[in-house]
């Protein structure tokens, strides 16, 4: 049962195709497992469709249709490969979201007690700050955000904070005004997160004294 969804603003930006590339990956990972957001997204896409229908049509070159007709029998291009995760030890039963197709996923790096980090590099947007996080059971992590929006999608396990319990499929949306203190569930937690702004670490940085 998913109880935490992206904000309507975030979902609308995704529907419009204007969300940052890093956030897009996390939102797609959420939407693929969330019927509620799939329905909301379809309604927003209907809005986009209605707006597109309202635009004054712009003619194409006269030969455009013939050019497309000539290509109809071309074979369809192959889909990109599934996400690479060869070196990444993951809890059994956890499969990385399809949204990570084409991403380069780094090894786990231990960055503190009970805390591991894996950089998710998006070749099409390498400046984006996307990561996998593995938090050991019971670890308390302090929110400490400086930049813009952060999205955190729970892939396995869970955590809770003042805003509630987050389990697999839930997404947490925080910005510089959010103050909370998440505590990982006893079995721990694996999350996919994206942070706006340059490379930096998310809410657990104060735990490490940075």
């Amino acid at each position, binding site marked *: 049962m998913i109880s935490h969804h992206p904000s309507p603003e975030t979902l*609308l930006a995704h529907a419009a195709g204007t969300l940052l590339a890093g956030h897009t990956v996390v939102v797609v990972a959420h939407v693929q497992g969330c019927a509620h957001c799939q329905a909301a997204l379809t309604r927003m896409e209907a809005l986009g*469709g*209605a707006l597109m*229908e309202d*635009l004054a049509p712009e003619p194409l070159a006269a030969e455009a249709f013939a050019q497309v007709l000539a290509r109809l029998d071309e074979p369809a*291009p192959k889909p990109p490969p599934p996400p690479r995760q060869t070196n990444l030890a993951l809890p059994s039963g956890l499969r990385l979201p399809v949204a990570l197709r084409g991403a380069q996923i780094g090894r786990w790096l231990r960055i503190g007690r009970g805390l591991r980090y894996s950089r998710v590099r998006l070749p099409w947007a390498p400046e984006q700050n996307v990561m996998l996080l593995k938090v050991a059971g019971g670890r308390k992590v302090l929110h400490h955000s400086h930049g813009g929006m952060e999205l955190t999608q729970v892939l396995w396990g869970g955590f809770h904070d003042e805003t509630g319990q987050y389990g697999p499929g839930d997404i947490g949306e925080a910005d510089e005004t959010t103050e909370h203190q998440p505590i990982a569930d006893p079995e721990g937690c694996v999350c996919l997160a994206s942070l706006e702004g340059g490379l930096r670490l998310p809410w657990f940085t104060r735990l490490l004294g940075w």
Partner: protein
Amino acid sequence: MTALASPPPDADALAALITQVAETRDRQAYAALFKHFAPRIMAYLRRGGMGAGEAEELTQEVMLTLWRKAGYFDPLRAGAATWLFAIVRNARIDRARRRRDATLSGAPPLEEADAAPSAESMSLVTEREAQLRSALNSLSPEQKEIVQLSFFSDTPHAAIASKLNLPLGTVKSRVRLAIAKLRILLEDPS
């Protein structure tokens, strides 16, 4: 100049045309879809700041995708324009990605997984989208413009700010307001 322009096909007719393309690879139905959608896709891409040549090329790719993916169109889930809008949006993002990463090729990485089958009937989808359209038309012109720019611009807030000559902060709060108004439209009726 005697021929009268035929009226544009309505939502149900467009959905039926896509289904025809899916089921019988009907090139005449495809031609009708091309005539209706290609100039609108073109207009959408141009509004987003794309040059004419690139917009035309991408419009052709989207229309090819329509031909190939027509079998995935589910009229019980979304109307024709809704479905096509998602394809255009993904194609635009995919093009931007490919510009950055030459190793990417093929289908849009954003392609969504197959959605759960819908329990709605086609008339419900049509009705819901008609309601959406009338609600959209009930927005004030400024609000409608803000919503349009939110959808049609690569950098919506900055574009709105310069277009409407407003400070960025004001734009952000107006976008929020327009969304709040639209949220009523976008909420799950159930």
